[in-house]
């Protein structure tokens, strides 16, 4: 046995791979996830009766009169004070009341102490639904074959224009002046390429399913569970239960992965559990099984991008026109924000003189799509990277040369008119990944065929905006409290959650260094809406960069006070702290985020500084394609990723490798299949995420182009970036190996075979 006490951590700790502070609890099984929380007195299990119909009028709910309902709590829409899930648009009911708009839509909630009886009770409820024609296809929705949402099925539109296309703001006007202008700009180019690219649904597949325990007492409503953003749930309770803020207590349990899937969805399961708890007067535990989790919860938005671009004969990119559609699913949820991020990343990491990007999100009668790592950007980066590969092919050049020639550099201007003044590392990442992977030699050599396999290599270059879009942080006003504690310790109180990515550990490192104390002299409070200020949600690659910088400033402020006390009256840091507390009582630094003053953003024209800064990366994938079966094996995966400053290198690499494998899974094996609005593969046995044998060797190179406002000497967001490049890099490698250019995901053997057969028919 090795003793469990951690090794001595050097000071300063930033840049050191401090072992995760929650590690010991996790490796011993002591960590309490929601389903591990001790049973509360009188606790009931909760279950959901869901619509089997994709669209229809809810005529009634019939309870089997033969069933003994005496010990079953039943909640329906009529039981809810305000039947709306509070998010961006108030379109989603907590329980369907008059209509259902997707299969799996919750209609009735049941609770019972006996789990076996509860399962029977679910079957004893019949939903009387008069079906209406559903729309499952986003283009059919756009064509308004049926009006299923609002006036025109459209959930949100954006228009970005730059250069000659920047003539008029006219979202939705397909033949408007800017469209004419961009068409003319493209037509004037030497080389014009048009392509259509499709990106598919993706299930987050956190290994811990969604779950919440809710109860009511004299303090109001309580919910604790697997939650990424406690204040989202808090807001949802405020609206639904008409409660004062201080009557709602939302606490995070140890969370077994989220990846966006536990950003907005937990509001729904928490509302459901709390409704049952309110009506029954007993605590209610709702834990989804895997099937229900896959069926009912949000997924990555499918996206179609139609791209036409023009460039000079020497490869200088000039003009870009993109028309993109995202499938929002039945309700709006976070779709406007996902569409925004997708739109803002659609031009890729490249310079363009003239740009027009028109984006539309439409409703379909499928479960709402929502947050998933990357948040719309992986879909549009897939498209633009595949498109540039096609442009390179037309020019007779290697894609990496074209990308190197056009990648945004310091002083360049993005499609929203943002001047990139500093922390721009696309070219550096490209160079490092290309060098490490021996990309150029391998490309020059051509695909290596050995036996019945062909090996190919491909690359993707990309950037990802860190933090909230545009003025988001200004509206958000994220806050953190740091307490000065006896003996010279600090206590961090934040709503930023650790869902596996290492927030707890990294925040301690940032605070410790800022205050000049040891990492183990910093505490981290369990995120709770009752005890922690609203730091904003744990999303958008903002936790370390934005919230971490508040932690840093608050720790600095407290430390300055203690050091002044030391200066004035002597003693150690700990002694001075104790004197301060004795004199003044509890001392806390409660700070609010101050967005960088140089950021200007116009939400109406979609112009300005879309993000405070960007993370940059280049992924190189080497694949082996089986020439008999067209199975794709990703053999090696290089990623040179600019993180600004690696606070904790092992955790940074863990984010990059884990995100990259999610991208690999999305690219080659993960696929949601549908029939009549039902998911036909709602199980881990047929929604295929990679195993250890499917994962490549990852060779991760950390690049550090510091962001002046980032904590710890310049840290930037890292959470989402690694999701962006894997799919296009793999598709490029597959194209290199077998000569088939795939524009649609996923790259399953069935699809590669079909594409190969189609291309052989064409060439024959």
């Amino acid at each position, binding site marked *: *046995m*090795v*003793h*469990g*006490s951690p*090794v001595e951590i050097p000071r300063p700790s930033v840049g050191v*791979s401090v*072992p*995760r502070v*929650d*590690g*010991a*609890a*996790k*490796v*011993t*099984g*002591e*960590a309490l*996830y929601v*389903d*591990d929380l001790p049973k509360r007195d009188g606790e009931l299990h909760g279950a959901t009766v869901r619509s089997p119909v994709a669209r229809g009028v809810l005529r009634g709910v019939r309870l089997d009169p033969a069933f003994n309902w005496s010990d079953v709590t039943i909640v329906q829409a009529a039981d809810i004070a305000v039947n709306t899930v509070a998010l961006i648009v108030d379109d989603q009911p907590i329980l369907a009341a008059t209509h259902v708009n997707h299969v799996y839509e919750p209609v009735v909630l049941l609770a019972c102490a006996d789990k076996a009886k509860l399962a029977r009770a679910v079957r004893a409820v019949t939903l009387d639904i008069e079906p209406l024609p559903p729309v499952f296809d986003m283009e059919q929705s756009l064509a308004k074959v049926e009006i299923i949402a609002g006036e025109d099925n459209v959930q949100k539109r954006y228009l970005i224009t730059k250069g000659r296309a920047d003539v008029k703001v006219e979202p939705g006007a397909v033949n408007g002046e800017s469209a004419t202008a961009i068409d003319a700009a493209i037509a004037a180019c030497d080389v014009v390429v048009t392509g259509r690219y499709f990106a598919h649904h993706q299930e*987050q*597949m*956190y*290994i*811990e*399913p969604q779950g919440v325990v809710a109860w009511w007492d004299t303090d109001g409503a309580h919910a604790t569970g697997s939650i990424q953003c406690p204040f989202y749930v808090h807001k949802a309770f405020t609206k639904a239960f008409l409660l004062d803020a201080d009557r709602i207590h939302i606490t995070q349990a*140890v*969370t*077994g*992965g*989220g*990846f966006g899937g536990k950003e907005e969805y937990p509001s729904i399961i928490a509302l459901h559990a709390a409704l049952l708890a309110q009506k029954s007067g007993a605590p209610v535990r709702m834990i989804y*099984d*895997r099937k229900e989790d896959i069926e009912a919860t949000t997924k990555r938005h499918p996206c179609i991008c139609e791209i036409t671009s023009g460039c000079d004969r020497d490869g200088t990119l000039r003009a870009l026109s993109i028309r993109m559609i995202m499938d929002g699913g039945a309700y709006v949820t976070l779709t406007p924000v996902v569409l925004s991020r997708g739109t803002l990343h659609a031009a890729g990491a490249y310079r363009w003189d003239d740009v027009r990007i028109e984006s539309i999100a439409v409703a379909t009668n499928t479960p709402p799509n929502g947050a998933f790592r990357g948040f719309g950007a992986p879909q549009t980066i897939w498209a633009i990277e595949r498109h540039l590969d096609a442009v390179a092919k037309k020019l007779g050049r290697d894609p990496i040369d074209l990308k190197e020639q056009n990648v945004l550099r310091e002083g360049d201007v993005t499609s929203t008119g943002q001047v990139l003044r500093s922390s721009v590392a696309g070219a550096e990442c490209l160079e490092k990944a290309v060098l490490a992977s021996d990309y150029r030699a391998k490309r020059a050599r051509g695909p290596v065929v050995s036996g019945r396999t062909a090996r190919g290599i491909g690359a993707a270059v990309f950037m990802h905006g860190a933090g909230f879009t545009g003025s988001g942080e200004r509206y958000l006003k994220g806050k953190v409290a740091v307490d000065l504690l006896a003996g010279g310790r600090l206590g961090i109180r934040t709503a930023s959650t650790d*869902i*596996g*990515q*290492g927030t707890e550990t990294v925040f301690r490192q940032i605070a410790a260094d800022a205050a000049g104390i040891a990492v183990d002299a910093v505490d981290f409070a369990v995120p709770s809406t009752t005890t922690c200020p609203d730091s904003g949600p744990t999303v958008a690659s903002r936790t370390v960069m934005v919230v971490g910088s508040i932690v840093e400033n608050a720790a600095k402020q407290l430390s300055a006070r203690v050091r002044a006390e030391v200066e004035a009256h002597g003693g150690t840091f700990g002694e001075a702290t104790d004197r301060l507390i004795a004199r003044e009582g509890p001392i806390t630094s409660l700070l609010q985020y101050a967005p960088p003053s140089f950021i200007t953003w116009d939400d109406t024209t979609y112009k300005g500084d879309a993000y405070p800064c960007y993370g940059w990366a280049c992924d190189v994938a080497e694949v082996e394609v089986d020439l008999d079966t067209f199975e794709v094996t990703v053999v090696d995966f290089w990623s040179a990723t600019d993180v600004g400053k690696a606070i904790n290198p*092992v*955790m940074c*690499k*863990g984010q990059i*490798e*884990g*995100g*990259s*494998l*999610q991208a690999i899974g999305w690219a080659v094996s993960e696929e949601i299949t549908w029939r009549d609005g039902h998911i036909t593969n709602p*199980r*881990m*046995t047929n929604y295929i*995420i990679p*195993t*250890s*044998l499917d*994962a490549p*060797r*990852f060779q991760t190179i950390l690049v550090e182009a510091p962001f002046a406002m980032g904590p710890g000497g310049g840290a930037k967001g890292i959470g989402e970036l690694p999701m962006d490049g894997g799919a296009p890099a793999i598709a490029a490698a597959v194209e290199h190996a077998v000569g088939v250019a795939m524009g649609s995901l996923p790259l399953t053997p069935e699809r590669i075979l079909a594409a190969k057969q189609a291309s052989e028919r064409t060439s024959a």
Partner: protein
Amino acid sequence: MKISLTLNGAPRELDSAPLVRLLDALRGPLGLTGTKEGCGEGECGSCTVLLDGDPVNACLVPIGQCEGRAITTVEGLGEMAHLSPLQRCFIDEGGAQCGICTPGMLISAEALLRRVPDPDEPTIREALAGNLCRCTGYQRIVESVRRAAELLREGAAR
């Protein structure tokens, strides 16, 4: 039905319906919630425990079949204050992120290292192939197991 078994080295007895899943027996009457449920169908491996030394999915084993047999769960590997080398390495090398797959992953790794003290990378990956992880990309898990094997061999040599 009365069932006697050895749990993490200690004899235990419980009264349970025989078809109740070992997973539910462990997390319920036996009071050990370290073993996790991720799918309930033998795919994710989060509920992996050792049954007479071999890794099995506790969601597919009825408790009635455990009569007289030895079960090892994550709680049997080490404690917070006395971590096993494998547990220590999962922390130090970044093998655990969200941690929900970690107990099962540790058990599969433990089973491997008991049989193969010096596994190469493909052997490690094969031994862990029944444990799905969505956070790490597996690389740091493989590194954790390799490092633990080194420590164990160094310890054995001493």
